[in-house]
């Protein structure tokens, strides 16, 4: 098993390097750069000399391979540099927004798990009855509804029914948990519905598969009550693929927040990313993409470890 895990671990690094290279190339292909954009207001009045000096300040005049090498070596020391647009250190730009996005992501996960597991189990138990159809339609609808539109509908309903609008200014959780929740519960619900749909479908199909296994029949035959059969034998074995989906979706949730954050005027990572692309803030875009991709790669690796730990067939390979 150790050889297998070591291989998976070592594979993470070329993948991360590939992501870094792809990001680096992609954003430099986008027309325009940060210097050009900053002075675009008074084009003509700025001499080429000033533009060149500004570019030199960010190291944009160096050959591309050297820019890349400098950046990667920095990242290896966990130094992401400074934002090209604001001049502030990257970690400072990201820190507060990361806390916000992470909180929404965690709340959305709670919403999703709380809905998905009971619904998926019920649907599997009552396969091909109206309950099953209702759950499936509910979850397919979740996949079809854009979370930003769901957010708009929430705002609309709150306005029309309660004549109340969620606060549009962010309060950190530790300052005033109640204010904070009043604002963040809505995006969490909007994103969580889609998320739960993915997990519900996975729970249902995993349960269907497990319920056909011989050991479930054995458990029933020896007279175990339904509740224990489900909790101890079925659910435990069906959880693996469900946890996989939840972990992978969680890693990608930051990406999914890009659009939803706009609706609720949340200054999170998604909004930061859109702004960074608009400003051609190379260092910030690179850092954000590495953060999301890094989360995804690490989540993948942890899953491999988890699988190897849980599943003896992998453990003894």
């Amino acid at each position, binding site marked *: 098993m150790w050889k297998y895990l070591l291989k998976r671990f070592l594979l993470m690094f070329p993948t991360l390097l590939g992501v870094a290279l792809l990001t680096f190339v992609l954003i430099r292909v986008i027309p325009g750069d940060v210097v050009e954009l900053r002075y675009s207001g008074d084009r003509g009045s700025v001499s080429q000399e000033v533009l060149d000096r500004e570019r030199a300040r960010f190291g944009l005049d160096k050959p591309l391979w050297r820019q890349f090498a400098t950046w990667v070596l920095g990242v290896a020391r966990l130094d992401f540099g400074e934002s090209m647009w604001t001049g502030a250190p990257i970690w400072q730009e990201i820190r507060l927004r990361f806390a916000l996005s992470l909180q929404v992501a965690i709340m959305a996960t709670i919403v999703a798990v709380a809905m998905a597991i009971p619904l998926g189990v019920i649907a599997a138990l009552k396969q091909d009855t109206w309950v099953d159809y209702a759950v499936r339609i509910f979850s397919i609808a979740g996949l079809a509804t854009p979370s930003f539109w769901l957010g708009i509908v929430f705002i609309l309903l709150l306005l*029309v029914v309660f004549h109340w609008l969620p606060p549009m200014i962010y309060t950190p959780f530790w300052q005033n948990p109640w204010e904070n929740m009043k604002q963040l519960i809505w995006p969490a619900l909007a994103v969580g519905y889609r998320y739960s749909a993915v997990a519900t479908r996975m729970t249902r199909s995993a349960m269907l598969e497990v319920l056909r296994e011989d050991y479930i029949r054995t458990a029933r035959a020896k007279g175990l009550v339904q509740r224990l059969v489900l909790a101890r034998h079925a659910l435990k074995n069906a959880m693996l693929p469900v946890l996989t989906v939840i972990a992978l979706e969680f890693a990608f949730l930051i990406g999914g927040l890009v*659009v939803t954050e706009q609706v609720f005027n949340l200054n999170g990572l998604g909004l930061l990313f859109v702004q960074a692309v608009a400003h051609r803030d190379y260092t910030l875009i690179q850092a954000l993409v590495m953060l999301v*991709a890094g989360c995804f790669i690490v989540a993948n690796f942890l899953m491999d470890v988890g699988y190897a730990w849980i599943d003896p067939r992998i453990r003894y390979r």
Partner: protein
Amino acid sequence: MAVARVPVPVPEAVEAAPPSTLSRWLGAAREFCRARPLGAIGGGVIVVMFIVALFSPLLAPYDPEAVDFGAMLARPSLAHWLGTDAFGRDVLARLVFGSRTALMVGFGASVLGATLGAVLGVASAYFGGRIDLYLQRVMDIFLCFPLIILALALVAILGNSIPNLIMAIMVPMIPRSALVIRSSALAIREMPFVDAARAAGFGHARIVLRHMLPNVMAPYLIMLTAFLGQAVLAEASLSFLGLGVQEPTAAWGLMLRGAAVEFAETAPWMAVFPGLAISLSVFAFNLFGDSLRDALDPRLRTQ
């Protein structure tokens, strides 16, 4: 364990010489509607969408881009069934024309993405060895990017015309399709007919395209229908962010942009109907795709 096999409309499964391709497909379609009513409903909605998109100029009550300052933010009425937006443009007309954008981008991106991914996946499985290894690594790298983030970067590079939007949404789909198709193609590579084709001296391209590709039709169709909904959602998201389709072109995501929140209280119809259109179409694609998967995937056939 005795398992009842539900009769399934798989065209390939027909062994006796069929009367004609058309009647074979019609028969399969009839069987599909009977065995999977939910899928048939989804298929029906897709057909209606196609008709609406094809005959938009005939069906739309107004010009979707005609500004009418006399009727700004008008409530739904007999003149404007679904009301008007902040420029007095008819919401229904924009919805009808928006179906063209949605279908064009949705089908364009998912067909191109799934097909290119299928070719890469089959080629990867066929050649194996080093080529397979390197292709897989490259695909792994692309898979680390959330769809919307990669699409967003590509739109920024390419600019936001409709063909560019199709390109931007297509690229993230390629590795997802290649991954699935490759695993099916690995089994097909071991089939005797591939050896036979090789023995007959056919070139690599011919074996991959003519012999292996047709045999991964089932996973290909499943991926394609799954991508359809995702592509429509991605287009709506990008347009909502202002990075997709540009004004004054009618697109559902664009209709939700800005105005929808600002005018939530005074003109809720502006926010409700475009969102319903997106949800309903993606819902139909998913419903159809799900049933198709159940019908085509032999592992799920047993019920």
